[in-house]
């Protein structure tokens, strides 16, 4: 069953906060749900499907539905880390196409930055009180502790895998295989910063240079601090509706429809130890989405690419076919990702590298900026002229071990 033209995104909202000291996780989910409903011109009683992932508190979908007072006939809590919202949009289109719901709400929210601040304050208080309760190491911000039943745990945890060093090993292997340089990776951050300067909500609005990126402190070689995304609080929501409803909303509001054209999802993992870190799961999810949409990478005018780290973007550019494998380093140089001057404008909100990475999950903000571009509602300084076809891609999990890619192609109609 093709999902091309079976659903449209009718509402999108990004929470403006980046530090949610006084907002709970469920409140953030509720804030973004309200924002997306208002953006769509809908009320909560119109929602009959709800989608969320592991960042939703308590019992997940039921807990958030209870807080919001939703009456639902379809729920889906597909969990695959940061790419989950991109899969949720595809699954919502499936459910709408199957008649399981008409209007689906997707939310993502979290407060890892506030949690880190709280953990730091608690550690400082414990140290001041005598020290024996002070714990060493960085404060935990993961949503859940490691699962003791995970079969890989014993073969990974003793070695200290963190997100940074796992992605760093992908970057080092890419450099080894293809001659990619730190300066080339830095261009990705430079492009993001050029976009973030126009976003008043972005955490990092200062335009940076290649030199500033490669001279920033080394986090896990070869990745520097400025190769890493921000840690931020907040979230976002989108509303997916069946085309007849989307058409009516579009007629009332005078805003264009954002039609789902292509979707793809795929997990990639350790493959029994027969490992190849030179490609990501996007090499599998991308072709599915392009085939469903009936378009090619050359047709895409704007791309939201998951930017947990600069290397993540480079891998997706190659795996989605925007350039050939191994040529990502040359592709991103000289501002080729900067809107207005480059061939492929990306992450015009500043992305996870500069703007926002709420709940340590970047998939929702990827969709939202693509919707802004297709509606012509991005910041004028970064708006792609006459943007009719856009792509959003997410990588949830860790590139070097197990992760799930989701690809979504959308068209303005």
């Amino acid at each position, binding site marked *: 069953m093709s999902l091309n033209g079976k659903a449209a995104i009718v509402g999108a909202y990004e929470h403006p906060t980046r530090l949610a000291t006084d907002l709970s996780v469920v409140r953030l989910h509720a804030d973004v749900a309200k924002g997306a409903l208002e953006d769509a011109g809908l009320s909560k009683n119109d929602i009959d499907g709800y989608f969320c992932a592991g960042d939703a508190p308590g019992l997940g979908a039921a807990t958030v539905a209870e807080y919001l007072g939703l009456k639902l006939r379809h729920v889906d809590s597909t969990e695959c880390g940061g790419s989950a919202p991109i899969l949720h949009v595809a699954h919502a289109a499936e459910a709408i196409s199957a008649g399981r719901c008409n209007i689906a709400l997707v939310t993502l929210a979290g407060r890892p930055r506030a949690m880190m601040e709280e953990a730091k304050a608690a550690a400082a208080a414990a140290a001041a009180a005598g020290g024996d309760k002070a714990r060493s190491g960085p404060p935990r911000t993961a949503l859940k502790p490691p699962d003791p039943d995970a079969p890989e745990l014993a*073969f990974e945890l003793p070695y*200290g895998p963190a997100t940074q060093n796992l992605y760093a090993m992908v970057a*080092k*292997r890419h450099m080894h295989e293809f001659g990619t340089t730190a300066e080339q990776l830095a261009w990705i951050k430079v492009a993001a910063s050029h976009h973030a300067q126009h976003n008043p909500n972005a955490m990092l609005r200062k335009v940076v240079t290649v030199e500033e990126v490669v001279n920033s402190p080394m986090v896990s070689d070869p990745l520097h601090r400025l190769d890493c995304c921000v840690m931020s609080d907040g979230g976002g929501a989108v509303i997916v509706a069946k085309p007849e409803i989307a058409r009516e909303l579009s007629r009332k509001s005078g805003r264009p429809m954002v039609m789902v054209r292509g979707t793809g999802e795929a997990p990639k993992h350790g493959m*029994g*130890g027969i490992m190849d870190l030179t490609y990501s799961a996007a090499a599998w999810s991308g072709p599915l989405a392009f085939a469903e949409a009936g378009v090619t990478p050359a047709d895409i005018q704007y791309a939201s690419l998951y930017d947990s780290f600069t290397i993540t973007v480079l891998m997706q550019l190659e795996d989605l076919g925007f350039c050939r494998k191994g040529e990502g380093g040359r592709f991103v140089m000289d501002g080729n990702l900067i809107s207005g001057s480059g061939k492929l404008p990306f992450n015009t909100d500043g992305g996870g590298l500069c703007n926002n990475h709420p709940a340590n999950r970047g998939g929702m903000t990827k969709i939202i900026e693509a919707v802004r571009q297709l509606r012509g509602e991005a910041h004028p300084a970064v708006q792609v002229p006459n943007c009719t076809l856009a792509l959003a891609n997410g990588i949830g999990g860790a590139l070097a071990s197990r992760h799930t890619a989701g690809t979504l192609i959308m068209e303005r109609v």
Partner: protein
Amino acid sequence: MRKIPAPKVLPETQAYWTAADEGRLLVKRCNSCGQAHHYPRDICPHCLSSDTVWQDAAGTGTVYSFSTMGAGDAAYTLAFVTLDEGVTLMTNLVDCDPATVRIGDKVRVVFQPSQGGHAVPMFTPV
């Protein structure tokens, strides 16, 4: 020095950790398809046969990738090493200056104690 968390042992991997305490590195191989795999399972991930057996590994391999994180005494090097038996495993590079290591370098297994648990296989340049 970084404290090494004790591996959480599942029933099907007990033999791997018992051997590690004896200074032996094991890999799982499938009698049906002939392929080795890692992490070790009862059921072969390549062909789903339950006819898998433990095999003593040579204990040597090459560096597939690595990255050093942290500074001073807290610095440690996460790595993937491809064993001579063909499987790639997550590990640490130890007893070396990681700045001198290159991808493709030959390494051999060494075993380091964990916190109150089994010994853990790590690798050092040959």
